[in-house]
């Protein structure tokens, strides 16, 4: 049976992981390659790297990172943040990443989704949607959650599927970093309208939160702080989920 996936997310700035990482096992807590290897050994099903520096050098940084990460792990990984063209994506994929994640590019140039999926296959194209609750519905934000677009999340989710996205990475800006749990309402609304896998993101603080979001049908759950801060290990969460009857890879 297909298992539910748990995906640690690493925010990378100028080649270093940010968002306090506390692991005794690591010599350099900011080293993304070292952390990737640790999470992979601990049972992560996939990894996501998001470049948040948005600097001019970020493309070459992420290309190098892909190359280094691919050498040390043997699970799939996604790279996103600041991908501005099909060329950027090609470089990252050619250097070992399995998928690229686009957000701002997809909104500003929706044709890019089709271009990328015809070139690399839809399985390599993750469209990230950053959502914020606003008077009864959810609005799509771009540029790292700073710019509202006026686009409705549910409408956009359907559109990205039609345009060839292979997966949706759905982040609740409201919940991000709060430890209050995934936005179940938001996640369910999107799950109801698309037929591609949905990765829930934003708000995971306790193992129970993973259970909640898997029970409504999310295919994967992404989390950062809960793992980086060392509050729960991936294995602990998976053991809890297994006891609750969720299919996980242990």
């Amino acid at each position: 049976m297909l298992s539910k996936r748990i995906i640690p997310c690493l925010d990378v700035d100028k080649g270093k992981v940010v968002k306090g990482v506390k692991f005794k096992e690591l010599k350099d807590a900011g080293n993304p390659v070292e952390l990737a290897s640790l999470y992979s050994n601990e049972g992560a099903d996939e990894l996501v790297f998001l470049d948040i520096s948005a600097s001019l050098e970020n493309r070459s940084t992420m290309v190098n990172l892909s190359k280094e990460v691919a050498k040390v792990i043997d699970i799939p990984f996604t790279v996103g943040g600041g991908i501005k063209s099909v060329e950027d994506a090609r470089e990252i994929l050619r250097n070992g990443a399995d998928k690229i994640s686009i957000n701002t590019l997809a909104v500003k140039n929706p044709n890019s989704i089709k271009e990328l999926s015809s070139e690399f296959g839809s399985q390599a194209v993750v469209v990230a949607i950053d959502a914020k609750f606003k008077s009864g519905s959810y609005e799509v934000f771009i540029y790292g959650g700073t710019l509202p677009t006026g686009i409705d999340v549910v409408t956009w989710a359907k559109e990205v599927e039609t345009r060839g996205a292979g997966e949706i990475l759905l982040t609740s800006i409201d919940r991000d970093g709060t430890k209050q749990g995934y936005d179940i309402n938001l996640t369910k609304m999107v799950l109801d309208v698309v037929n591609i896998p949905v990765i829930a993101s934003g708000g995971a603080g306790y193992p129970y939160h993973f259970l909640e979001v898997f029970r409504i049908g999310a295919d994967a759950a992404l989390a950062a702080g809960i793992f980086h801060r060392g509050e729960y290990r991936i294995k602990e969460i998976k053991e809890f989920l297994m006891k609750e009857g969720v299919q996980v890879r242990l």
Partner: protein
Amino acid sequence: MLVALVDTGVSNLTSLTNALSRLGASYEINSSKLLEANAIIIPGVGSYDAAAKKINLVRNFLLDAISKEIPILGICLGYQLLLESSEEGKEKGLGIFKGKAVKFSGVKVPHIGWNTLENLKEDKITEGIKENSYVYFVHSYYPLLEEDIALAKTTYGVSFASIAKKKTVYGFQFHPEKSGTVGLKLLENFLRLSK
């Protein structure tokens, strides 16, 4: 140990070559010396027709390799190229395995993620692999075989042959190079077939 990789032009080979290096094997991509290799791997992610056109160019070499008992492994699309045809395209496959690739229906497509190997049959390739081990899948079409050559099955809406074997030719529908320690073990078992 030399492994010849038959690149159909649309694959990302980095993970696979990294895995081969970890196992201490050297490799050549699109080598002209296909028949001098100890083993042959046909990787593949991408569209069926483009890959089928390319694989048919080396069809005779592959048939020679089979008669010389050089182990061949088709991975993901590479496995589907071993079949007679695919619903994904019009080109003919190699026809080494009887059957065709058909699209999943009634489930989320693509089938992405970790799924289990069930009904494992004893073979050198499955040595040390436990029933219900997880491996990583990414595909929209699955092999529908017309002969009983499955060494493992996987269920996603339907049950399909996730590992198939005929003579010294193997097909893996999942990506061993992305499947952690289980995947590496399967690749190691494959490499050990040649000697």
